[in-house]
């Protein structure tokens, strides 16, 4: 089980969290002007990176807040966590 460092509560066990998928996906706008290729990129296509991957987590059974994490998907090691809205750490 992963120990996930919530930026608000500190390290907590994985079962307190829900995974929110790839981070920094920006919803295209305005909806009526967006073509179907752009919609399918936003809705379905994913980077699915092997390596340092930026993803969303929610401390659902804790503080309830969303945050972002940079995790190496080849080792599951958390490289950094940061608050929603902050830029991805280098």
């Amino acid at each position: 089980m992963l120990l996930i460092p919530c930026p608000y509560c500190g390290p907590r066990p994985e079962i307190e969290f829900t995974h929110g998928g790839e981070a920094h996906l920006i919803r295209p706008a305005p909806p009526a002007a967006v073509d179907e290729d752009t919609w399918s990129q936003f809705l379905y296509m994913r980077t699915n990176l092997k390596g340092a991957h930026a993803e969303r987590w929610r401390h659902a059974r804790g503080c309830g807040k969303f945050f972002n994490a940079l995790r190496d998907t080849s080792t599951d090691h958390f490289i950094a966590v940061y608050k929603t809205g902050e830029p991805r750490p280098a």
Partner: protein
Amino acid sequence: MSKQSFSALSLFWRGLSRHRGWRQQWRKPDPEPQYDAVIVGGGGHGLGAAYYLAKEHGLGHIAVLEKGWIGGGNTGRNTTIIRSNYLFNESAALYDHSLKMWENLSQALDYNVMFSPRGVMMLAHTIHDIQVIKRHVHANRCNGVDNEWLEPAAAKAFCPPLNIDSNIRYPVLGAALQRRGGTARHDAVAWGYARAADELGVDIIENCEVTGIRRDASGAVAGVETTRGYIQSKKIGVSAAGHTSVILQLAGVRLPLESFPLQALVSEPVKPIFPCVVMSNTIHAYISQSDKGELVIGAGTDAYTSYTQRGALHINMHTLDAVCELFPTFRRLAVLRNWGGIVDVTPDRSPIIAKTPVPGLYVNCGWGTGGFKATPGAAHLFAWTMARDEPHPINAPFSIERFRDGVLIDEAAAAAVAH
């Protein structure tokens, strides 16, 4: 290499000379600089595709590139369940195509893949389950796929260890039974395809990781960079399961895939006690008994994307809770080992067997947690798609463009569970 066929007679005959006359079943060639077609991924799907390309489409010069050893990925890690009781017409056609090929695979390959149609039973625990499962039964029968509804007593008669007590947390209210479903020996599938493909001249190249995809001036594929040198080919088929996104990124293609660890475990071996396959989507348990005697138990996927081939213990515990309640007899068995594999999951839980936007580059992926059952069918259809540069009518709906066009084949919603 001349064929060394397998039969009771040949076994007896070799036995007379203390089994010293058996040859290695496939060569270990070094890669050549150029091939007519290259398959990336030496699992059952990839080896099978190479076999059908050579056997049915007459391609002479084919290589299968495998990063590790053949059958060492998800082919060697799954729980070997074979069934075709999917809801939608497109899925039923695809999976039943595969199931029909399983029925004759040992004969076709002259290799005993130990296909055992012992019956796959899916349990219903709630009123909602009953409705969903009966809908599946009716839809399957309309599509010519066998499936039948069993009341709890009939389910217990078919699978005696099953606990049908009404006072358990998730009582068994009935079950759907696909009698043609069952299991097969996963390693034998990889080895059987490898042996048969090698006999037709396919080069199976292990320890050869693809590190780049080169394209020509028109944008079409020209070859692959590998850890064993550059290999030229104008047809490249990627059949790399959980690592498909990683390979396709080399050609700049994004796919609707996310890779998750899926875990499984086996108990210590015991005498034959479990006559069929039982699945429960609601409480998430998959169980059968291997011919070695181990109870083979499929657990769930972890919550996060990962390429680590391992997962958290609480996922297995959740499944074992369900198994121990449904089969109280198994509570005292020890778990022998557990492991994980990386599965590539699509948003609609249906696979992709298709051309990509890059000419000459094809992909067979997105099988998620249920690719083993499709091995012969997927390999056959993938070979067709690569050879003719157009999909077979069965796999035409399983394109990448279905996500753009909104024609999903939503088995995720149909089953409400990974499968």
